[in-house]
């Protein structure tokens, strides 16, 4: 069981180390979709490995896999046969402690995910209800709602009953072609349910509010999702329309100071909007096939290895 513990702990630490490197890597902007998959694998693999490593400490060695060992330990604890005369009480206590921590971590992860879902659903429901009362349609932006406010804003309320919202300020700011590009971008978000991609990373930030890695992961994925939607919009509209819309937006929105966490995120490195504009105006080649395969293989391994250790004994 020691090998399993060490391997799982190794996977968990590798995931965190990779996440730190991935947050500053340059290649993700060339292949946002592959990078998003890698981020998801890192998150899931880390969760499985961390819970698994703690559970493996508690598992009884003579049974197969982490799951079997934990079940044997739990069953033994219930029938009191887990404390045979030759087993020191301290060892049993340690096992019980690590099992408790494993269960607590698993419960925390499930809880924050559920809480993030509920918050998002509730906020969206209220937002939609208010939009129904306040917004109007406009022939300049077919399929979108217009909110009468002078500031520039364009966003979507994702979900089964999704809404794309454009502020009156945006209608004044952008020309027809730029508006069409913005709509194409927002439709891509809605169609591909990018909100679901982002949700687990929101939950992770909630679970570990002081963790820099969790925040980095969230911000990286948020940016990648935007790039993905930019790429989709570029299929339908010329890239320069979207780029100029982004630049006008950035210039117009600068009066609003970014709040809290966002301000900190902007302090280092190039700004997100600048990065996206540069990407649209000077498109880079996609990833080479070997690199692409390597990324997908690591993503699969990150999830499969910890999952397999739950059932396969070492």
């Amino acid at each position, binding site marked *: 069981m020691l090998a399993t513990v060490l391997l799982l702990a190794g996977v968990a630490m590798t995931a965190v180390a990779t996440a730190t490197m991935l947050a500053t890597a340059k290649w993700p902007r060339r292949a946002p979709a592959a990078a998003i998959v890698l981020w998801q694998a890192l998150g899931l693999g880390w969760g499985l490995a961390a819970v698994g490593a703690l559970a493996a400490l508690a598992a009884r060695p003579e049974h197969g896999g982490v799951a079997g060992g934990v079940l044997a330990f739990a069953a033994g604890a219930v029938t009191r046969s887990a404390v045979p005369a030759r087993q020191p009480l301290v060892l049993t206590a340690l096992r019980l402690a690590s099992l408790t921590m494993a269960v607590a971590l698993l419960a925390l992860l499930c809880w924050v995910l559920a809480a993030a879902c509920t918050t998002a659903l509730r906020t969206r429901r209220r937002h939609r209800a208010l*939009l129904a009362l306040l917004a109007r349609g406009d022939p300049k932006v077919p399929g979108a709602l217009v909110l009468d406010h002078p500031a520039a804003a364009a966003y979507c309320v994702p979900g089964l009953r999704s809404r794309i*919202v454009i502020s009156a300020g945006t209608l004044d700011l952008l020309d027809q072609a730029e508006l069409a590009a913005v709509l194409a971008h927002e439709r891509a978000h809605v169609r591909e349910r990018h909100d679901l991609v982002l949700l687990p990373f929101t939950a992770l930030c909630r679970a570990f509010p002081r963790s820099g890695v969790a925040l980095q992961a969230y911000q990286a994925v948020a940016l990648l999702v935007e790039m993905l939607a930019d790429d989709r919009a570029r299929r339908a509209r010329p890239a320069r329309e979207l780029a100029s819309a982004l630049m006008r937006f950035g210039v117009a*929105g600068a009066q609003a100071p970014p709040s809290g966490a*966002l301000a900190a995120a902007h302090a280092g490195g190039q700004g*997100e909007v600048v990065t996206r504009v540069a990407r649209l105006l000077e498109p880079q080649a996609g990833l080479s096939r070997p690199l692409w395969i390597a990324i997908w293989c690591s993503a699969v391994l990150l999830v499969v290895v910890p999952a397999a250790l739950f059932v396969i004994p070492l």
Partner: protein
Amino acid sequence: MDVLWETVSPLTVREVSERLTERDLAHTTVMTVLDRLAKKGFAVRERDGRAWQYQAAASREAYVTELMLSALDQAAGDRQAALTRFARSVTDSEARALRSALEAFEDRSGS
């Protein structure tokens, strides 16, 4: 809802129906709609004798501001994850970079 926003004083269901002259709505329809608005918290009601009197819970502008605040990424905490925005707010230095990029871009497309 627009009727409630236009009047300062609380209105009964009958008064709301009377103000909705352009649309011939049944009294019960208006009552149901007002009841729903009250349940969702957008209208507040108080009993005046036998009839309920309705009033908007907040001004139209207040609600627009609420929507715009979340749209501009300034809502509290993890509520910001509920929406997907076209562009996040930028810093001053980023805005300067974007402004010069935009000018260069317009020069190029103009020529």
